[in-house]
């Protein structure tokens, strides 16, 4: 089994994470219920002919994917893997609205063609003329993790030397408003709903200061009471104890289901830094890809921004990070990173 390293990480998010290196000391607090991504100049990365047909998620995904490859000095990866919870919801809405408005007649092809969930992976492959393995995972809040797990297996089994993996979700225009309407105002998600695309190049090649993707484990359902046991087992499988983890990044979104994170945090000693991020980046099905971007950034730069810290404990040396995400008490994922 080969080790799996992360050679590059690129993210387009509600904060300015793309154009410059991450600077969360000046992050903009999100006050609205919906937070659009901070969009870069897509023209630099996508040909105008292709760009005019692309909806937000496709633009974000193709741009973040291309930049991740560029940063890792890879022109053609051995696999392209994407994860998305809602897929290309913007074009889906356009297509379905046209279907209703025109009484199922006069349907135009563009929004239909680009409404499928695998559009981002396909557009990246088309742009690169890459015929390698290409797969898209759609599993709610485990969509990105499923793609990451596939990528990690390809690297570990030596089936691929470099794999592009990403998580993408766009806000869309209408469906998100219905989601907000049915969301429990008191017990539901308290951070804004948002969008983003985070891409990574996984590789078997160990570089200087390489960040290792040690392990990923996912669960569709676990109870709150099972969290400490499951987490301890996950760490033990990787020869770690809770005291070995320098920082834990949890996907707190203010809902009643944050109690799962409290159970997880309780197993770690006071010396472990406790971080959260969705108050700055919002909630979406592939927000955990944003957490992985933050984990990679922290390990690489040995810097934790105060805006991410819960409490006041921040370690000076960070060598191991655990990511824990779940949505509404379902779709749990644990990701372990180390330097």
């Amino acid at each position, binding site marked *: 089994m080969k080790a799996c390293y992360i050679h590059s990480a690129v993210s387009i998010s509600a904060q300015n994470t793309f154009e410059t290196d991450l600077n969360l000391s000046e992050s903009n607090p999100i006050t609205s219920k919906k937070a659009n991504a901070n969009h870069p100049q897509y023209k630099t990365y996508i040909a*105008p*002919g292709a760009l*005019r*047909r692309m909806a937000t998620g496709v633009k974000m995904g193709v741009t973040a994917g291309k930049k991740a490859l560029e940063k890792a000095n890879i022109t053609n990866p051995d696999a392209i893997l994407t994860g998305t919870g809602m897929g290309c919801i913007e074009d889906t809405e356009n297509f379905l609205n046209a279907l209703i408005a*025109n009484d199922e*007649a*006069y*349907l*135009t*092809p*563009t929004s239909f*063609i680009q409404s499928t969930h695998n559009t981002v992976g396909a557009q990246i492959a088309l742009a690169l003329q890459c015929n390698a393995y290409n797969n898209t995972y759609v599993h709610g809040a485990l969509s990105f993790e499923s793609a990451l797990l596939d990528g990690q297996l390809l690297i570990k089994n030596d089936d691929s030397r470099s794999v592009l993996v990403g998580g993408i979700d766009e806000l869309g225009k209408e469906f998100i408003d219905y989601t907000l309407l049915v969301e429990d105002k008191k017990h539901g998600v308290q951070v804004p709903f948002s969008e983003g695309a985070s891409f990574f190049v996984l590789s078997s090649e160990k570089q200087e200061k390489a960040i290792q993707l040690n392990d990923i484990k996912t669960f569709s359902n676990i109870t709150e009471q099972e969290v400490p046991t499951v987490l301890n087992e996950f760490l033990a499988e990787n020869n770690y104890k809770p005291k070995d983890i320098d920082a834990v990044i949890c996907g707190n979104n203010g809902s009643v289901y944050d109690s799962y994170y409290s159970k997880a945090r309780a197993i770690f000693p006071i010396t472990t830094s406790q971080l959260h991020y969705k108050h700055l980046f919002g909630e979406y099905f592939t927000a955990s890809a944003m957490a992985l971007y933050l984990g990679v950034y922290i390990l690489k730069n040995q810097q934790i921004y105060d805006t991410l810290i819960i409490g006041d404990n921040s370690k000076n040396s960070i060598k191991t990070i655990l990511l824990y995400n779940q949505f509404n008490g379902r779709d749990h994922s644990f990701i372990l990173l180390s330097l």
Partner: protein
Amino acid sequence: MSNLIQELKENIIELLNLEEFSVEDINDDDALFGDGLGLDSIDALELMVMLDKDYGIKLTDPKEGKEIFQSIAVLADYIEKNRAK
């Protein structure tokens, strides 16, 4: 006719998301495909749906489309002569 030409230019820019173009940038005789506006086969499908929806013209022969979509002027002339709406 000039009103129809103006309308077609506006509709095509909006329908095909030609953000780089304004109505003034498109000459009546500019080629829609290839070196002119650079449209492609998917755009041709979008234009065929537009003809049906907005002007009641159904194109069944693809060869016919090649002739009609030469330029805005040719397209406007064809619509004038064949429109049902």
